């Protein structure tokens, strides 16, 4: 038994609690409390102007799921995630593979690809509005060069969401690329040398050595991107404002408008809970899938 006042591994002391207290306090104040408050609000009729009008039970949720616009935002958000996340994983991995060498030009290219990530959403959308500008934008110029007519990307219902997805991938492809680069650089060079002596083709090396070695990174990138892209808002708000005809309106925009335009805090909180549940489901599904693959 440890004597009183002796510190060491396995020695229990109430003083130890003090070390985690600052962290726990911040966690409680900035995460646990707002989470609880949000959950509470979602069952209330709380108008920012009119004040609290009592608990309404599940009414906010019932209203949400009968609102065609809200259901449309779920569809749009899920579609957006489905468009962007695989692109982030595939393109990020492709760039990392192409630039995973010590060549000077690769270092320059890495910096360029990462460079756009530091731009603010306003700058990014400004750049892409210039690209998408019908008849005069860069896209129209390029199409004109090969003799094709200009396409209106943003104002078209079926093209609005994909065009924002392209902007998003262009904007923050740097992070997945960097994560994949870090993953690739963890693979010992000896494994590739052993594979070369084992007559492995490039494809075989990729599927049998590289991919299995960075499986955790793939899961990580997918998870980060799912969580990020479910919360898409800024670029859509600035490029399409959710239009045309709600074709690109995401959940977060719906929450924003319900809470800060219509002042319906309780209703907005309920929509936030739905988004939270969706993200949780997607993350859990990935964990489950990754773990199953690992066990296999």
């Amino acid at each position, binding site marked *: 038994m440890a004597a009183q006042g002796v510190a060491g591994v396995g020695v229990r002391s109430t003083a130890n609690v003090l070390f985690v207290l600052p962290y726990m306090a911040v966690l409680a104040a900035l995460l646990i409390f707002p989470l609880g408050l949000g959950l509470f609000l979602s069952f209330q009729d709380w108008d920012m102007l009119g004040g609290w009008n009592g608990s309404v039970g599940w009414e906010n949720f019932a209203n949400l799921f009968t609102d065609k616009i809200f259901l449309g935002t779920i569809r749009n958000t899920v579609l957006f995630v489905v468009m962007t996340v695989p692109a982030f994983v595939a393109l990020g991995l492709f760039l990392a593979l192409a630039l995973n060498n010590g060549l000077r030009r690769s270092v320059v290219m890495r910096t360029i690809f990462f460079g756009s990530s530091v731009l603010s959403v306003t700058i990014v959308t400004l750049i892409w509005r210039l690209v998408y500008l019908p008849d005069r934008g860069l896209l129209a110029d390029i199409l004109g060069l090969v003799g094709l007519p200009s396409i209106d990307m943003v104002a078209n219902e079926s093209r609005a969401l994909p065009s924002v997805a392209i902007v998003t991938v262009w904007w923050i492809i740097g992070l997945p690329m960097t994560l994949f680069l870090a993953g690739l650089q963890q693979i010992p060079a000896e494994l590739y*040398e*052993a594979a070369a002596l084992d*007559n492995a083709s490039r494809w075989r090396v990729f599927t*049998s050595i590289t991919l299995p070695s960075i499986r955790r990174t793939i899961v990580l990138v997918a998870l980060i991107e799912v969580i990020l892209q479910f919360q898409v808002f800024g670029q859509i708000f600035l490029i399409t404002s959710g239009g045309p005809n709600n074709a690109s309106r995401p959940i977060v925009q719906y929450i924003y408008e319900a809470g800060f335009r219509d002042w319906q805090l309780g209703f907005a909180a309920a929509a936030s809970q739905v988004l939270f549940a969706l993200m949780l489901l997607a993350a859990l599904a990935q964990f489950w899938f990754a773990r199953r693959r690992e066990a296999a």
Partner: protein
Amino acid sequence: MPEQADQNGQLAHNSAPPGLSLRHVGKRFGSFEAISNLSLEVPEGEFAVFLGPSGCGKSTLLRMVAGLEAPNGGEIHLGGRRIDSLPPGDRGVAMVFQHYALYPHMTVRQNMEFGLRNIGTQATEIARRVADAAEMLEIGTLLERKPAQLSGGQRQRVAIGRAIVKEPRIFLFDEPLSNLDAALRARTRVELARLHQRMRATMVFVTHDQVEAMTMATRIVVMNRGRIEQVGTPIEVYRRPATRFVASFIGTPAMNFLPVARLEEQAGMAVAVLANGARVATAIPAAAVPAGEVTLGIRAEDLHPGSGMAATIEVIERLGERTLVHVRLTDGATLIYDEPGDAELEIGQPVALSPDGQAAHLFDADGRACAAEAR
């Protein structure tokens, strides 16, 4: 004369069946010349050990044979076929890496099968080879495990197994014992020697550990600064080192060196007169000793206590079966000599030492050994 590799020449092993042949091979990394114009023959069935200090180019040489580094010049032949421009997989070599380089997400069996599957070997043949290798290396019970579930020694065996199943023309070992603890290293040395006898395969083993080299090699290739210092059997390089570098690198403790004040001749043989006046009658013909600065080399076991040079004991190293005694001569030079394990000695005790002249070596100013008569 000991078989010393001529950097530009061939070794006297041309009668053996063709094994590995390096001809005027060179390798530069930027302005650093890792290997300079090196030629070497390793006959088929030989266990050759490339021995040298870190950075001497031994691993680079091995990697050039494997195809993992491209030589800047020269030719590499294996089994009569030129291989230096072939991809690693087509050379007929198998390599055991320092850190084993097992594929971590594959089972032991998959690790061993991987190379064979890649060249389209038939499933029944793969199964036979894996079973044979597993039996030989006693890893049959580990086949379905992954590398992370194995101990260092087991991983080592799997790495060797992965090489064996390929039935290569030559096995290349890149310091594969350096990650094992002392006891396991000693055991693996014996197992590798046994494996070599059993398979009669050509093996090239790279190490900086002279004990590994001495215990396993058919021939040792001692390297220093990208050049071959000497090629010979373990006893040859120990008994008749071709250079002062070899003499100091091989053997524990390192050979003692004493400056020779002047040389005399007695019955045609050189007599080294040391600074302290001691006379050492060597078995080296006086004619073989060039003019200029000469150094006497003498191993610890060839210094006999009793009479001769006066010295004082400074350090006593008890190794069990023998005792290494570090002494300082009256002229300030230090020597190490051998005593039996139970010798009664004290620090500060005066001793007298006489070198066995017949076992003494003489090195010229360039560090080259003066040829001794065969003993």
